[in-house]
Protein backbone atom coordinates (compact mmCIF):
# COMPACT_ATOMS: atom_id res chain seq x y z
CA UNK A 1 0.00 0.00 0.00
CA UNK A 2 1.40 3.34 -0.99
CA UNK A 3 1.53 5.76 1.90
CA UNK A 4 2.26 9.45 2.03
CA UNK A 5 3.98 8.93 5.37
CA UNK A 6 7.28 7.39 6.31
CA UNK A 7 7.15 3.71 7.35
CA UNK A 8 5.24 3.54 10.65
CA UNK A 9 4.49 7.30 10.47
CA UNK A 10 7.52 8.64 12.37
CA UNK A 11 10.59 9.86 10.51
CA UNK A 12 13.77 7.82 10.85
CA UNK A 13 15.50 10.37 13.12
CA UNK A 14 12.65 10.24 15.57
CA UNK A 15 12.57 6.44 15.50
CA UNK A 16 16.28 6.37 16.15
CA UNK A 17 15.83 8.69 19.13
CA UNK A 18 13.09 6.41 20.50
CA UNK A 19 15.18 3.26 19.92
CA UNK A 20 18.01 4.81 21.90
CA UNK A 21 15.60 5.39 24.78
CA UNK A 22 14.33 1.79 24.48
CA UNK A 23 17.87 0.41 24.52
CA UNK A 24 18.68 2.46 27.58
CA UNK A 25 15.51 1.22 29.21
CA UNK A 26 16.37 -2.40 28.46
CA UNK A 27 19.88 -1.84 29.84
CA UNK A 28 18.52 -0.39 33.09
CA UNK A 29 15.38 -2.45 33.79
CA UNK A 30 12.60 -0.47 35.40
CA UNK A 31 14.32 2.91 35.02
CA UNK A 32 12.17 5.62 33.41
CA UNK A 33 14.09 7.06 30.45
CA UNK A 34 13.02 10.57 29.38
CA UNK A 35 12.42 10.80 25.64
CA UNK A 36 11.28 13.57 23.32
CA UNK A 37 7.77 12.31 22.78
CA UNK A 38 6.16 13.61 19.59
CA UNK A 39 2.66 14.79 19.01
CA UNK A 40 0.89 11.92 17.35
CA UNK A 41 -2.30 12.04 15.28
CA UNK A 42 -4.23 10.49 18.17
CA UNK A 43 -4.78 12.23 21.51
CA UNK A 44 -2.56 11.91 24.54
CA UNK A 45 -4.18 9.29 26.72
CA UNK A 46 -5.12 7.14 23.72
CA UNK A 47 -1.79 5.33 23.72
CA UNK A 48 0.60 7.78 22.07
CA UNK A 49 3.53 6.39 24.10
CA UNK A 50 2.77 2.82 23.09
CA UNK A 51 2.23 3.88 19.50
CA UNK A 52 5.62 5.61 19.37
CA UNK A 53 7.37 2.58 20.88
CA UNK A 54 5.58 0.25 18.45
CA UNK A 55 6.47 2.53 15.54
CA UNK A 56 10.13 2.43 16.56
CA UNK A 57 10.10 -1.40 16.87
CA UNK A 58 8.15 -2.37 13.76
CA UNK A 59 9.85 -3.81 10.69
CA UNK A 60 7.97 -4.66 7.49
CA UNK A 61 8.02 -8.42 8.29
CA UNK A 62 6.24 -7.96 11.63
CA UNK A 63 2.78 -9.26 12.50
CA UNK A 64 1.05 -6.83 14.81
CA UNK A 65 -1.67 -7.49 17.38
CA UNK A 66 -3.36 -4.64 19.23
CA UNK A 67 -5.58 -5.14 22.27
CA UNK A 68 -7.41 -2.86 24.66
CA UNK A 69 -8.93 -4.40 27.80
CA UNK A 70 -7.70 -7.74 26.43
CA UNK A 71 -9.90 -7.46 23.35
CA UNK A 72 -8.87 -7.02 19.71
CA UNK A 73 -12.14 -5.40 18.70
CA UNK A 74 -12.46 -2.54 21.20
CA UNK A 75 -12.69 0.75 19.34
CA UNK A 76 -9.27 2.10 20.32
CA UNK A 77 -7.54 -1.19 19.52
CA UNK A 78 -9.22 -1.12 16.11
CA UNK A 79 -8.12 2.46 15.59
CA UNK A 80 -4.46 1.84 16.50
CA UNK A 81 -4.30 -1.36 14.44
CA UNK A 82 -5.69 0.52 11.45
CA UNK A 83 -3.17 3.29 11.97
CA UNK A 84 -0.28 0.87 11.56
CA UNK A 85 -1.95 -0.98 8.69
CA UNK A 86 -2.21 2.36 6.95
CA UNK A 87 1.19 3.84 7.79
CA UNK A 88 3.36 0.69 7.95
CA UNK A 89 1.38 -1.79 5.87
CA UNK A 90 2.33 -4.58 8.29
CA UNK A 91 0.37 -7.82 8.65
CA UNK A 92 -1.98 -7.94 11.61
CA UNK A 93 -3.33 -10.82 13.63
CA UNK A 94 -5.60 -11.45 16.58
CA UNK A 95 -3.76 -14.63 17.59
CA UNK A 96 -1.36 -13.94 20.45
CA UNK A 97 0.94 -16.79 19.43
CA UNK A 98 1.25 -15.53 15.84
CA UNK A 99 2.07 -11.92 16.71
CA UNK A 100 5.62 -10.59 16.73
CA UNK A 101 4.65 -7.26 18.27
CA UNK A 102 1.66 -6.83 20.58
CA UNK A 103 0.51 -3.41 21.73
CA UNK A 104 -1.71 -3.55 24.78
CA UNK A 105 -3.70 -1.36 27.08
CA UNK A 106 -4.57 -2.67 30.57
CA UNK A 107 -3.91 -6.41 30.03
CA UNK A 108 -1.24 -9.03 29.47
CA UNK A 109 -2.52 -11.79 27.15
CA UNK A 110 -3.45 -15.10 28.82
CA UNK A 111 -1.49 -17.17 26.29
CA UNK A 112 2.13 -17.25 27.51
CA UNK A 113 4.45 -15.13 25.41
CA UNK A 114 7.60 -16.52 23.86
CA UNK A 115 11.13 -15.38 23.06
CA UNK A 116 11.27 -12.94 20.19
CA UNK A 117 7.90 -11.38 20.89
CA UNK A 118 7.63 -7.74 21.96
CA UNK A 119 4.84 -6.62 24.26
CA UNK A 120 4.28 -2.84 24.19
CA UNK A 121 2.27 -1.28 27.01
CA UNK A 122 0.43 2.03 26.86
CA UNK A 123 1.20 3.91 30.05
CA UNK A 124 -0.78 6.87 31.40
CA UNK A 125 1.29 7.69 34.50
CA UNK A 126 4.71 6.02 34.49
CA UNK A 127 5.68 7.14 37.96
CA UNK A 128 4.68 4.61 40.66
CA UNK A 129 5.27 7.25 43.34
CA UNK A 130 3.21 9.97 41.62
CA UNK A 131 0.17 9.79 43.86
CA UNK A 132 2.36 9.83 46.93
CA UNK A 133 4.47 12.75 45.71
CA UNK A 134 3.20 14.91 42.83
CA UNK A 135 6.56 16.51 42.00
CA UNK A 136 8.67 14.87 39.33
CA UNK A 137 11.79 16.58 40.69
CA UNK A 138 11.15 14.82 44.03
CA UNK A 139 10.22 11.39 42.69
CA UNK A 140 13.29 11.21 40.46
CA UNK A 141 15.41 11.91 43.51
CA UNK A 142 13.59 9.17 45.42
CA UNK A 143 14.40 6.67 42.65
CA UNK A 144 18.02 7.81 42.57
CA UNK A 145 18.34 7.21 46.29
CA UNK A 146 16.26 4.01 46.11
CA UNK A 147 14.12 5.70 48.74
CA UNK A 148 10.88 3.72 48.59
CA UNK A 149 9.87 4.12 52.23
CA UNK A 150 6.84 6.20 51.28
CA UNK A 151 5.49 3.36 49.15
CA UNK A 152 5.84 0.85 51.96
CA UNK A 153 4.12 3.23 54.36
CA UNK A 154 1.25 3.53 51.87
CA UNK A 155 0.91 -0.25 51.60
CA UNK A 156 1.11 -0.56 55.39
CA UNK A 157 -1.61 2.06 55.85
CA UNK A 158 -3.80 0.09 53.44
CA UNK A 159 -3.41 -2.97 55.65
CA UNK A 160 -4.05 -0.97 58.81
CA UNK A 161 -7.22 0.51 57.34
CA UNK A 162 -8.61 -2.31 55.20
CA UNK A 163 -6.88 -5.43 56.47
CA UNK A 164 -5.24 -5.87 53.09
CA UNK A 165 -3.40 -3.97 50.38
CA UNK A 166 -6.26 -2.17 48.65
CA UNK A 167 -4.67 -1.80 45.21
CA UNK A 168 -6.51 -3.79 42.59
CA UNK A 169 -4.68 -2.63 39.47
CA UNK A 170 -1.57 -0.63 38.63
CA UNK A 171 0.10 -2.64 41.38
CA UNK A 172 3.77 -1.62 41.77
CA UNK A 173 6.62 -4.07 41.27
CA UNK A 174 10.29 -3.98 42.13
CA UNK A 175 12.45 -4.78 39.12
CA UNK A 176 15.68 -6.76 39.48
CA UNK A 177 15.93 -5.67 43.11
CA UNK A 178 16.40 -2.02 42.16
CA UNK A 179 13.72 0.21 40.66
CA UNK A 180 10.10 0.28 41.74
CA UNK A 181 8.11 0.30 38.53
CA UNK A 182 4.55 1.04 37.52
CA UNK A 183 3.28 -1.87 35.40
CA UNK A 184 0.63 0.39 33.79
CA UNK A 185 -2.98 -0.12 34.85
CA UNK A 186 -3.11 -3.89 34.38
CA UNK A 187 -5.17 -5.76 37.00
CA UNK A 188 -2.92 -7.20 39.69
CA UNK A 189 -4.06 -10.59 38.38
CA UNK A 190 -1.60 -9.98 35.52
CA UNK A 191 1.35 -9.02 37.72
CA UNK A 192 2.87 -12.52 37.93
CA UNK A 193 3.11 -12.57 34.12
CA UNK A 194 5.45 -9.55 34.23
CA UNK A 195 8.18 -11.55 35.93
CA UNK A 196 10.65 -13.76 34.05
CA UNK A 197 8.68 -13.32 30.85
CA UNK A 198 10.54 -14.61 27.75
CA UNK A 199 9.20 -11.67 25.70
CA UNK A 200 10.61 -8.14 25.76
CA UNK A 201 8.21 -5.85 27.61
CA UNK A 202 8.37 -2.16 26.66
CA UNK A 203 6.40 0.62 28.32
CA UNK A 204 5.67 3.92 26.57
CA UNK A 205 4.22 7.02 28.23
CA UNK A 206 3.77 9.70 25.55
CA UNK A 207 2.35 12.62 27.47
CA UNK A 208 4.78 12.10 30.35
CA UNK A 209 7.69 11.53 27.91
CA UNK A 210 9.00 8.33 29.47
CA UNK A 211 9.99 4.88 28.22
CA UNK A 212 10.95 1.94 30.41
CA UNK A 213 11.43 -1.76 29.91
CA UNK A 214 11.59 -5.26 31.30
CA UNK A 215 14.14 -7.27 29.32
CA UNK A 216 13.37 -10.99 28.79
CA UNK A 217 13.41 -13.04 31.99
CA UNK A 218 13.79 -9.96 34.19
CA UNK A 219 12.60 -10.32 37.74
CA UNK A 220 9.61 -8.19 38.79
CA UNK A 221 8.34 -8.69 42.33
CA UNK A 222 4.99 -7.29 43.37
CA UNK A 223 5.51 -5.27 46.55
CA UNK A 224 4.15 -6.90 49.70
CA UNK A 225 5.02 -7.87 53.27
CA UNK A 226 6.02 -11.30 54.58
CA UNK A 227 2.84 -11.57 56.65
CA UNK A 228 0.66 -10.01 53.93
CA UNK A 229 1.88 -11.67 50.74
CA UNK A 230 0.77 -10.47 47.33
CA UNK A 231 -2.12 -12.39 45.82
CA UNK A 232 -3.27 -12.18 42.21
CA UNK A 233 -7.04 -12.01 42.24
CA UNK A 234 -9.92 -12.11 39.80
CA UNK A 235 -13.69 -12.58 39.84
CA UNK A 236 -14.38 -15.94 41.46
CA UNK A 237 -16.22 -17.40 38.47
CA UNK A 238 -15.73 -19.33 35.29
CA UNK A 239 -16.06 -17.85 31.82
CA UNK A 240 -19.67 -18.25 30.75
CA UNK A 241 -18.63 -18.73 27.13
CA UNK A 242 -15.55 -20.98 27.27
CA UNK A 243 -15.64 -22.25 30.87
CA UNK A 244 -12.06 -21.09 31.60
CA UNK A 245 -11.40 -20.86 35.32
CA UNK A 246 -7.95 -19.33 35.26
CA UNK A 247 -8.43 -16.36 32.95
CA UNK A 248 -9.28 -12.78 33.86
CA UNK A 249 -13.00 -12.10 33.55
CA UNK A 250 -15.12 -9.11 32.58
CA UNK A 251 -18.44 -8.79 34.31
CA UNK A 252 -21.32 -8.02 31.95
CA UNK A 253 -24.69 -6.83 33.20
CA UNK A 254 -27.34 -8.72 31.22
CA UNK A 255 -30.58 -7.21 32.54
CA UNK A 256 -31.85 -4.73 35.09
CA UNK A 257 -32.64 -7.47 37.62
CA UNK A 258 -29.04 -7.89 38.73
CA UNK A 259 -28.17 -10.73 36.37
CA UNK A 260 -24.55 -10.96 35.42
CA UNK A 261 -22.41 -13.00 33.15
CA UNK A 262 -18.66 -13.39 33.22
CA UNK A 263 -16.57 -13.62 30.08
CA UNK A 264 -12.85 -13.75 29.38
CA UNK A 265 -11.42 -10.29 28.87
CA UNK A 266 -8.87 -11.87 26.47
CA UNK A 267 -11.04 -12.40 23.38
CA UNK A 268 -8.40 -14.37 21.47
CA UNK A 269 -7.90 -16.77 24.39
CA UNK A 270 -11.66 -17.26 24.78
CA UNK A 271 -12.23 -17.88 21.09
CA UNK A 272 -9.36 -20.39 21.01
CA UNK A 273 -10.93 -22.35 23.86
CA UNK A 274 -14.37 -22.35 22.28
CA UNK A 275 -12.91 -23.54 19.00
CA UNK A 276 -11.23 -26.34 20.94
CA UNK A 277 -14.66 -27.42 22.16
CA UNK A 278 -14.89 -25.84 25.62
CA UNK A 279 -18.40 -24.63 26.41
CA UNK A 280 -19.38 -22.40 29.32
CA UNK A 281 -22.70 -21.90 31.11
CA UNK A 282 -24.08 -19.64 28.37
CA UNK A 283 -21.75 -20.68 25.58
CA UNK A 284 -24.16 -22.85 23.64
CA UNK A 285 -25.57 -21.93 20.23
CA UNK A 286 -26.61 -18.34 19.96
CA UNK A 287 -24.04 -16.85 22.35
CA UNK A 288 -21.30 -14.62 21.12
CA UNK A 289 -23.04 -13.47 17.98
Amino acid at each position, binding site marked *: MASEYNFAYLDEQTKRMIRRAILKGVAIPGYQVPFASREMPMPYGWGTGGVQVTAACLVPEDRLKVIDQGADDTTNAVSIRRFFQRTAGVAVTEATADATVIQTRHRIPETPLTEGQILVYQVPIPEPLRFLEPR*ETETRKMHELEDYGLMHVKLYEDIARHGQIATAYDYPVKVEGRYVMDPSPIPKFDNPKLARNPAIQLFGAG*REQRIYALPPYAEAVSLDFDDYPFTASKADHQCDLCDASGSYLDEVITDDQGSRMYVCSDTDFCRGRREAGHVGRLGGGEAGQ
Partner: protein
Amino acid sequence: MYVAVKGGERAIDAAHAWLAEERRGDTSVAELSVAQIREQLALAVNRVMAEGSLYDADLAALAIKQSRGDLIEAIFLIRAYRTTLPRLGVSLPLETAEMAVSRRISATFKDLPGGQILGPTFDYTHRLLDFKLAAEGEVAAAPTAPASLEPVPHVTGMLGRDGLIQSEAYGNDTPSDLTREPMELPASRPLRLQAITRGDEGFILSMAYSTQRGYGRTHAFVGELRIGAVAVEMEIPELGFSVEIGEVELTECETVNQFKGSKTEPPQFTRGYGLVFGQTERKAIAMSLVDRALRWKELGEDFTGAPAQDEEFVLMHSDNIQATGFLEHIKLPHYVDFQAELEMIRKLRREAMAHKEAAE
Protein backbone atom coordinates in the same frame (compact mmCIF):
# COMPACT_ATOMS: atom_id res chain seq x y z
CA MET B 1 -29.05 -12.75 25.69
CA TYR B 2 -25.61 -11.31 25.72
CA VAL B 3 -24.34 -10.10 22.40
CA ALA B 4 -20.58 -9.86 22.36
CA VAL B 5 -19.44 -6.28 21.88
CA LYS B 6 -18.22 -6.73 18.33
CA GLY B 7 -18.27 -4.27 15.50
CA GLY B 8 -15.93 -1.56 16.79
CA GLU B 9 -14.71 -1.18 13.25
CA ARG B 10 -18.14 -0.54 11.77
CA ALA B 11 -19.04 1.81 14.60
CA ILE B 12 -15.93 3.90 13.99
CA ASP B 13 -16.65 4.25 10.26
CA ALA B 14 -20.26 5.19 10.87
CA ALA B 15 -19.28 7.70 13.58
CA HIS B 16 -16.79 9.37 11.26
CA ALA B 17 -19.36 9.67 8.49
CA TRP B 18 -21.90 11.17 10.88
CA LEU B 19 -19.30 13.57 12.21
CA ALA B 20 -18.50 14.76 8.68
CA GLU B 21 -22.18 15.42 8.09
CA GLU B 22 -22.56 17.31 11.38
CA ARG B 23 -19.50 19.37 10.58
CA ARG B 24 -21.06 20.53 7.35
CA GLY B 25 -24.36 21.39 9.04
CA ASP B 26 -27.44 22.41 7.08
CA THR B 27 -26.46 22.14 3.40
CA SER B 28 -28.93 24.86 2.46
CA VAL B 29 -26.56 27.28 4.21
CA ALA B 30 -23.45 28.19 2.21
CA GLU B 31 -20.27 26.39 3.18
CA LEU B 32 -17.47 28.34 4.90
CA SER B 33 -14.31 28.67 2.88
CA VAL B 34 -10.88 28.42 4.46
CA ALA B 35 -10.16 31.93 3.20
CA GLN B 36 -13.27 33.27 4.97
CA ILE B 37 -12.10 31.76 8.24
CA ARG B 38 -8.58 33.09 7.75
CA GLU B 39 -9.82 36.62 7.02
CA GLN B 40 -12.86 36.94 9.26
CA LEU B 41 -11.96 34.75 12.24
CA ALA B 42 -8.36 35.95 12.33
CA LEU B 43 -8.07 35.97 16.12
CA ALA B 44 -9.14 32.32 16.30
CA VAL B 45 -6.60 31.58 13.57
CA ASN B 46 -3.95 33.42 15.60
CA ARG B 47 -4.68 31.39 18.70
CA VAL B 48 -4.45 28.14 16.76
CA MET B 49 -1.11 29.21 15.25
CA ALA B 50 0.26 30.28 18.65
CA GLU B 51 -0.75 27.19 20.59
CA GLY B 52 -0.16 24.91 17.63
CA SER B 53 3.40 26.32 17.39
CA LEU B 54 3.12 26.61 13.62
CA TYR B 55 2.86 29.90 11.75
CA ASP B 56 0.57 29.16 8.83
CA ALA B 57 -2.74 31.00 8.71
CA ASP B 58 -4.22 28.84 5.95
CA LEU B 59 -3.51 25.58 7.74
CA ALA B 60 -4.85 27.03 10.99
CA ALA B 61 -8.03 28.13 9.20
CA LEU B 62 -8.40 24.68 7.68
CA ALA B 63 -7.97 23.12 11.12
CA ILE B 64 -10.69 25.39 12.53
CA LYS B 65 -13.02 24.35 9.74
CA GLN B 66 -12.25 20.67 10.22
CA SER B 67 -12.67 20.89 14.00
CA ARG B 68 -16.07 22.60 13.75
CA GLY B 69 -14.67 25.61 15.61
CA ASP B 70 -13.30 23.63 18.56
CA LEU B 71 -10.03 25.54 18.89
CA ILE B 72 -8.28 22.99 21.09
CA GLU B 73 -9.13 20.32 18.53
CA ALA B 74 -7.81 22.64 15.80
CA ILE B 75 -4.59 23.21 17.76
CA PHE B 76 -4.25 19.44 18.07
CA LEU B 77 -4.59 19.00 14.30
CA ILE B 78 -1.85 21.57 13.75
CA ARG B 79 0.44 19.99 16.34
CA ALA B 80 0.02 16.53 14.83
CA TYR B 81 0.76 17.93 11.38
CA ARG B 82 3.75 19.86 12.68
CA THR B 83 5.31 16.62 13.97
CA THR B 84 5.65 15.34 10.42
CA LEU B 85 7.45 18.42 9.07
CA PRO B 86 11.18 18.21 8.43
CA ARG B 87 13.49 20.83 9.92
CA LEU B 88 15.15 22.71 7.12
CA GLY B 89 17.02 25.16 9.27
CA VAL B 90 16.86 27.76 11.99
CA SER B 91 16.17 31.46 11.53
CA LEU B 92 18.21 34.24 13.05
CA PRO B 93 16.76 35.72 16.25
CA LEU B 94 13.90 38.07 15.37
CA GLU B 95 14.46 41.79 15.83
CA THR B 96 11.24 42.91 17.46
CA ALA B 97 12.67 46.42 17.85
CA GLU B 98 12.37 46.72 14.09
CA MET B 99 8.77 45.54 14.02
CA ALA B 100 6.41 47.32 11.59
CA VAL B 101 3.92 48.05 14.34
CA SER B 102 0.17 48.14 13.80
CA ARG B 103 -0.38 48.72 17.50
CA ARG B 104 1.99 49.92 20.15
CA ILE B 105 1.04 51.18 23.56
CA SER B 106 2.85 51.91 26.79
CA ALA B 107 1.09 52.17 30.12
CA THR B 108 4.17 53.61 31.81
CA PHE B 109 4.88 56.72 29.70
CA LYS B 110 2.38 59.20 28.34
CA ASP B 111 4.41 59.72 25.21
CA LEU B 112 7.61 58.22 23.97
CA PRO B 113 9.75 57.85 20.84
CA GLY B 114 7.69 56.09 18.19
CA GLY B 115 4.48 57.29 19.82
CA GLN B 116 1.42 55.51 21.09
CA ILE B 117 -0.46 53.73 18.31
CA LEU B 118 -3.86 52.43 19.30
CA GLY B 119 -4.36 50.18 16.30
CA PRO B 120 -7.22 47.76 15.69
CA THR B 121 -8.30 47.03 19.26
CA PHE B 122 -11.51 46.12 21.06
CA ASP B 123 -10.31 48.15 24.06
CA TYR B 124 -12.62 51.15 23.75
CA THR B 125 -15.49 49.57 21.89
CA HIS B 126 -18.76 49.43 23.73
CA ARG B 127 -19.72 45.80 23.97
CA LEU B 128 -23.10 46.18 22.36
CA LEU B 129 -24.22 43.54 19.93
CA ASP B 130 -24.06 45.06 16.49
CA PHE B 131 -27.19 43.87 14.74
CA LYS B 132 -26.02 45.50 11.55
CA LEU B 133 -23.56 42.60 11.23
CA ALA B 134 -26.46 40.17 11.28
CA ALA B 135 -27.72 41.93 8.19
CA GLU B 136 -24.32 41.32 6.59
CA GLY B 137 -23.61 45.01 5.99
CA GLU B 138 -20.32 45.99 4.44
CA VAL B 139 -18.07 48.28 6.47
CA ALA B 140 -16.87 51.66 5.34
CA ALA B 141 -13.14 51.96 4.73
CA ALA B 142 -11.17 53.18 7.77
CA PRO B 143 -9.28 56.46 7.47
CA THR B 144 -5.58 56.06 6.75
CA ALA B 145 -2.42 58.06 7.26
CA PRO B 146 1.04 57.51 5.83
CA ALA B 147 3.10 55.10 7.93
CA SER B 148 5.66 56.80 10.13
CA LEU B 149 9.24 55.86 9.37
CA GLU B 150 10.36 56.91 12.83
CA PRO B 151 12.05 54.07 14.74
CA VAL B 152 10.04 52.53 17.57
CA PRO B 153 12.58 51.59 20.24
CA HIS B 154 11.65 49.33 23.16
CA VAL B 155 10.52 51.11 26.32
CA THR B 156 12.59 48.77 28.45
CA GLY B 157 15.64 49.74 26.41
CA MET B 158 15.10 53.38 27.44
CA LEU B 159 14.79 52.39 31.10
CA GLY B 160 17.82 50.18 30.71
CA ARG B 161 20.04 53.07 29.64
CA ASP B 162 19.68 54.54 33.11
CA GLY B 163 20.15 51.18 34.79
CA LEU B 164 16.62 51.39 36.13
CA ILE B 165 15.67 48.00 34.84
CA GLN B 166 17.51 44.79 35.27
CA SER B 167 19.47 43.81 32.17
CA GLU B 168 18.97 40.36 30.72
CA ALA B 169 21.72 37.88 30.07
CA TYR B 170 22.76 37.94 26.44
CA GLY B 171 23.97 34.80 24.77
CA ASN B 172 24.55 33.24 21.39
CA ASP B 173 23.71 29.72 22.52
CA THR B 174 20.90 27.99 20.69
CA PRO B 175 18.23 27.41 23.31
CA SER B 176 16.96 23.86 23.66
CA ASP B 177 13.75 23.05 21.80
CA LEU B 178 10.75 21.96 23.82
CA THR B 179 9.35 20.08 20.84
CA ARG B 180 12.52 18.09 20.23
CA GLU B 181 13.82 17.29 23.71
CA PRO B 182 12.02 16.03 26.80
CA MET B 183 11.22 18.71 29.36
CA GLU B 184 13.65 18.53 32.23
CA LEU B 185 13.13 20.36 35.46
CA PRO B 186 14.26 22.82 36.64
CA ALA B 187 13.80 24.34 33.19
CA SER B 188 15.83 27.20 31.71
CA ARG B 189 14.00 30.46 31.06
CA PRO B 190 13.98 29.93 27.25
CA LEU B 191 12.32 26.57 27.83
CA ARG B 192 9.79 28.11 30.22
CA LEU B 193 8.95 30.82 27.71
CA GLN B 194 8.48 28.23 24.97
CA ALA B 195 6.10 26.29 27.16
CA ILE B 196 4.09 29.37 28.11
CA THR B 197 3.79 30.78 24.61
CA ARG B 198 2.24 27.52 23.37
CA GLY B 199 0.36 26.98 26.64
CA ASP B 200 -3.40 27.18 26.84
CA GLU B 201 -4.60 30.78 26.73
CA GLY B 202 -7.18 30.17 29.44
CA PHE B 203 -4.70 28.50 31.76
CA ILE B 204 -2.02 31.18 31.29
CA LEU B 205 -4.68 33.89 31.74
CA SER B 206 -5.85 32.39 35.02
CA MET B 207 -2.31 31.92 36.30
CA ALA B 208 -1.53 35.57 35.49
CA TYR B 209 -4.78 36.71 37.08
CA SER B 210 -3.97 34.80 40.24
CA THR B 211 -0.71 36.77 40.58
CA GLN B 212 -2.68 40.01 40.29
CA ARG B 213 -4.94 38.88 43.10
CA GLY B 214 -2.03 38.23 45.41
CA TYR B 215 -0.91 34.66 44.74
CA GLY B 216 2.68 35.56 43.89
CA ARG B 217 2.14 39.26 43.30
CA THR B 218 4.67 41.01 41.07
CA HIS B 219 3.16 44.52 40.64
CA ALA B 220 3.25 44.55 36.87
CA PHE B 221 2.93 47.61 34.60
CA VAL B 222 2.62 47.10 30.88
CA GLY B 223 5.83 48.85 29.89
CA GLU B 224 4.99 48.14 26.32
CA LEU B 225 2.70 46.11 24.18
CA ARG B 226 3.42 45.98 20.47
CA ILE B 227 1.84 44.11 17.62
CA GLY B 228 3.14 43.99 14.09
CA ALA B 229 5.10 42.26 11.39
CA VAL B 230 8.69 41.19 11.89
CA ALA B 231 11.02 39.99 9.18
CA VAL B 232 12.34 36.43 9.46
CA GLU B 233 15.89 36.08 8.26
CA MET B 234 17.87 32.98 7.64
CA GLU B 235 21.55 32.46 7.14
CA ILE B 236 22.16 30.58 3.90
CA PRO B 237 25.48 28.70 4.24
CA GLU B 238 26.13 28.73 0.47
CA LEU B 239 25.74 32.52 0.38
CA GLY B 240 27.51 33.37 3.61
CA PHE B 241 24.94 36.01 4.53
CA SER B 242 21.36 36.11 5.69
CA VAL B 243 18.32 36.68 3.53
CA GLU B 244 14.77 37.58 4.44
CA ILE B 245 12.52 34.57 3.90
CA GLY B 246 9.24 36.08 5.04
CA GLU B 247 7.58 37.85 7.91
CA VAL B 248 5.44 36.89 10.87
CA GLU B 249 2.95 38.88 12.89
CA LEU B 250 3.80 38.89 16.57
CA THR B 251 2.51 40.32 19.81
CA GLU B 252 5.21 41.27 22.27
CA CYS B 253 4.62 42.44 25.81
CA GLU B 254 7.18 43.60 28.31
CA THR B 255 6.05 44.31 31.82
CA VAL B 256 7.94 46.47 34.24
CA ASN B 257 7.75 45.15 37.76
CA GLN B 258 8.52 46.74 41.07
CA PHE B 259 11.50 45.22 42.78
CA LYS B 260 12.87 46.50 46.05
CA GLY B 261 16.11 44.61 45.72
CA SER B 262 17.32 41.51 47.44
CA LYS B 263 20.47 40.16 49.02
CA THR B 264 22.01 39.82 45.57
CA GLU B 265 20.30 42.51 43.46
CA PRO B 266 20.11 46.33 43.97
CA PRO B 267 16.67 47.99 43.80
CA GLN B 268 15.63 48.27 40.18
CA PHE B 269 12.74 47.34 37.97
CA THR B 270 12.54 43.81 36.67
CA ARG B 271 10.77 42.49 33.62
CA GLY B 272 8.38 39.86 32.50
CA TYR B 273 8.32 38.91 28.85
CA GLY B 274 5.61 37.72 26.52
CA LEU B 275 5.91 36.90 22.82
CA VAL B 276 3.15 35.16 20.90
CA PHE B 277 2.32 34.53 17.24
CA GLY B 278 -0.33 36.80 15.72
CA GLN B 279 -2.46 39.44 17.35
CA THR B 280 -2.90 37.72 20.69
CA GLU B 281 -2.50 40.41 23.30
CA ARG B 282 -4.41 38.80 26.15
CA LYS B 283 -2.05 35.85 25.91
CA ALA B 284 1.08 37.99 25.55
CA ILE B 285 0.25 40.09 28.62
CA ALA B 286 -0.63 37.01 30.64
CA MET B 287 2.56 35.33 29.50
CA SER B 288 4.68 38.22 30.71
CA LEU B 289 3.07 38.10 34.15
CA VAL B 290 3.57 34.36 34.49
CA ASP B 291 7.15 34.64 33.25
CA ARG B 292 7.87 37.26 35.90
CA ALA B 293 6.25 35.22 38.66
CA LEU B 294 8.37 32.19 37.73
CA ARG B 295 11.57 34.23 38.06
CA TRP B 296 11.46 34.41 41.87
CA LYS B 297 14.47 32.18 42.36
CA GLU B 298 16.92 34.04 40.09
CA LEU B 299 15.84 37.35 41.67
CA GLY B 300 16.24 36.05 45.20
CA GLU B 301 12.58 36.49 46.09
CA ASP B 302 10.63 34.25 48.44
CA PHE B 303 8.64 31.30 47.22
CA THR B 304 5.25 31.93 48.78
CA GLY B 305 3.73 28.70 47.55
CA ALA B 306 1.66 30.50 44.91
CA PRO B 307 0.73 28.28 41.95
CA ALA B 308 2.09 30.79 39.40
CA GLN B 309 5.52 30.69 41.08
CA ASP B 310 5.64 26.94 40.89
CA GLU B 311 7.54 26.03 37.74
CA GLU B 312 6.63 22.35 37.79
CA PHE B 313 2.96 23.11 38.37
CA VAL B 314 2.77 25.72 35.60
CA LEU B 315 4.86 23.94 32.98
CA MET B 316 3.40 20.48 33.49
CA HIS B 317 -0.20 21.68 33.24
CA SER B 318 -0.19 24.49 30.68
CA ASP B 319 -0.38 22.38 27.53
CA ASN B 320 -4.00 21.99 26.51
CA ILE B 321 -3.31 19.12 24.11
CA GLN B 322 -1.75 17.07 26.88
CA ALA B 323 -4.44 18.15 29.32
CA THR B 324 -7.43 17.48 27.11
CA GLY B 325 -6.02 14.14 25.99
CA PHE B 326 -5.49 12.87 29.49
CA LEU B 327 -8.76 14.32 30.72
CA GLU B 328 -10.83 12.85 27.93
CA HIS B 329 -9.11 9.47 27.92
CA ILE B 330 -11.14 8.48 30.96
CA LYS B 331 -14.03 7.91 28.57
CA LEU B 332 -12.09 5.06 26.96
CA PRO B 333 -12.96 1.58 28.27
CA HIS B 334 -11.61 0.89 31.73
CA TYR B 335 -13.65 -2.18 32.49
CA VAL B 336 -10.69 -4.38 33.30
CA ASP B 337 -9.54 -2.01 36.02
CA PHE B 338 -13.08 -1.34 37.13
CA GLN B 339 -13.66 -5.08 37.43
CA ALA B 340 -10.62 -5.36 39.68
CA GLU B 341 -11.97 -2.51 41.83
CA LEU B 342 -15.40 -4.11 41.92
CA GLU B 343 -13.98 -7.37 43.25
CA MET B 344 -11.91 -5.45 45.79
CA ILE B 345 -14.88 -3.44 47.06
CA ARG B 346 -17.06 -6.56 47.28
CA LYS B 347 -14.39 -8.34 49.27
CA LEU B 348 -13.83 -5.41 51.60
CA ARG B 349 -17.59 -5.07 52.14
CA ARG B 350 -17.99 -8.79 52.84
CA GLU B 351 -15.29 -8.58 55.46
CA ALA B 352 -16.70 -5.40 56.99
CA MET B 353 -20.20 -6.94 57.18
CA ALA B 354 -18.87 -10.14 58.74
CA HIS B 355 -17.04 -8.00 61.26
CA LYS B 356 -20.17 -6.05 62.08
CA GLU B 357 -22.29 -9.19 62.47
CA ALA B 358 -19.68 -10.76 64.72
CA ALA B 359 -19.75 -7.65 66.91
CA GLU B 360 -23.53 -7.63 67.24
